[in-house]
């Protein structure tokens, strides 16, 4: 066979594989959305869950998921940025940085159930934080930090070294070069990574079952006092998230409309994650254009 023919065969195989991947993706998404979307209503999104009767919603779970996401990002972004900047811009390659990189890698391959149980033993029991949003946020930070750090380090590294030399040759310090030249140039990549990781956090259940808990106590959305037990912002209250809710409804719920709730919740979850993913691309591009002043 000649090169041209081989080329044809190879392209054919690749196209087939790509088509298979897309098909699987579309099938899963289509199934979930098709089953769930018809049951999503304003009422469903804004009313509390019911334990025994039909007609419950997911108001608290949806809020808990978002709140936990925000807290997790607030905790993990500064750490990830610090570690990523250190690894990419300051650390020289030696046994110590090798150790950090290996640890990050090991941490990133830990199953989330293990992270959850570890969080349960350490934060919930030992440190007495109880089933709480705080415990959940810390567990999610453990779960999120390795990939986030990696992503930030990679984004910074992908900025050409020529840019660092330009900064150096103009008498900028290492820190100025990093923060004013390298970081802005890497920002779109970092943002994309951050939003994608937000999707992972939002859909995470296993790490939360034993840390943030499985109950959604009724909270008062007009109570802005973070320290009040009934405030929706209180980080010490247990908080069942959307993903945990889906798991719970499917395993132990006695509501007559459990099926409906689970499929509608799944659809909401998928839609939110899709919004994150598409938003990541859009914002990343937009930001890049703004920073580089290309119109």
């Amino acid at each position: 066979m000649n090169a041209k023919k081989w080329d044809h065969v190879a392209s054919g195989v690749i196209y087939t594989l790509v088509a298979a991947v897309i098909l699987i993706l579309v099938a899963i998404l289509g199934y979930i959305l098709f089953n769930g979307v018809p049951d999503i209503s304003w009422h469903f999104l804004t009313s509390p869950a019911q334990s025994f009767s039909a007609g419950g919603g997911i108001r608290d779970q949806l809020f808990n998921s978002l709140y936990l996401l925000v807290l997790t990002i607030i905790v993990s972004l500064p750490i990830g940025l610090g570690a990523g900047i250190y690894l990419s811009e300051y650390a020289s390659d030696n046994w110590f940085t090798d150790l950090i990189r290996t640890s990050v890698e090991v941490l990133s391959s830990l199953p989330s159930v293990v992270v959850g149980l570890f969080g349960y033993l350490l934060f919930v029991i030992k440190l007495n934080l109880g089933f709480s949003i705080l415990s959940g946020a810390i567990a999610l930070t453990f779960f999120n930090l390795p990939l986030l750090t990696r992503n930030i380090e990679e984004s910074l590294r992908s900025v050409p070294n020529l840019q660092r030399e330009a900064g150096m040759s103009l008498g900028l310090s290492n820190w100025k070069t990093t923060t004013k030249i390298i970081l802005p140039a890497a920002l779109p990549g970092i943002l994309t990574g951050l939003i994608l990781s937000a999707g992972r956090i939002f859909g995470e259940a296993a790490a939360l079952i034993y840390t943030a808990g499985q109950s959604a106590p009724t909270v008062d959305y007009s109570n802005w006092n973070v320290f009040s037990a009934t405030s929706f912002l209180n980080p010490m209250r247990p908080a069942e998230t959307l993903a945990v809710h889906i798991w719970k409804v499917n395993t132990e719920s006695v509501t007559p409309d459990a099926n409906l709730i689970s499929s509608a919740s799944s659809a909401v979850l998928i839609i939110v994650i899709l919004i994150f993913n598409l938003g990541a691309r859009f914002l990343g591009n937009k930001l890049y254009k703004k920073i580089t002043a290309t119109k």
Partner: protein
Amino acid sequence: MKEYNLNESYITDIPEKKALSTKNLQVYYGDNHAIFDANMDFPRYKITALIGASGCGKSTFLRCLNRMNDKVARVDGNIMYRNVDINSPKINVYEVRQHIGMVFQRPNPFAKSIRENIIFPLRNTGIKSNDELEERLEQSLRGAALWDEVKDDLNKSALALSGGQQQRLCIARSIAMHPDVLLLDEPASALDPISTSKIEETLQILKKDYSIIIVTHNLQQASRISDYTAFLHLGHIVEYNSTANVFTKPKMQATDDYVSGNFG
């Protein structure tokens, strides 16, 4: 490759005032001894060319002169600038680099607007007055022969410029700092002939105010634009003399072979 006696060299004493001098300069990349005992004076307000085969150490030598080899290589010896040894560990390297600017082989404008490319490093040196910043912006762009092409698009991304324009922007960015010495490492090697001749013209004008040291692998370019030429071979400065002498009356066999194309 022909063998030459690398212990012999011809290094001229320049009559001009000195912009920079190197004394017993040695550079090591780990065990690799890349520059051997470089002793030479660079004249003020002239263009000095560094020529030699690829890998002979031109870039390595040039990058020592504003401490860009810090953390990359070990540099021993002295580099005298205004009676100060700027190769001393006590020297503030950031300040050195503000006095001795550098333009690289591949254009490396920041991913910012044209204006920001020039103004941002200036602000970093403590200049706050907008008038002064704007004045330096225009002056440096004019100096790099870029003003007429970009004066209406100063807020456009520097990345949207052509390669030749980007390189002139990098020159403008360097001269906006009002350095004494400008180091250029093959600044035209990635450019087309028209951009190249624009850059050469620019350098001719700039040498009135700056001492220029330029690495080039292009012999015609060296003979066209430079006043002095140093020929490097395997990390040794084999010959340093006025450009006319290096090209027409070389003192060393290696130089003769190199400039007449019989090298290697």
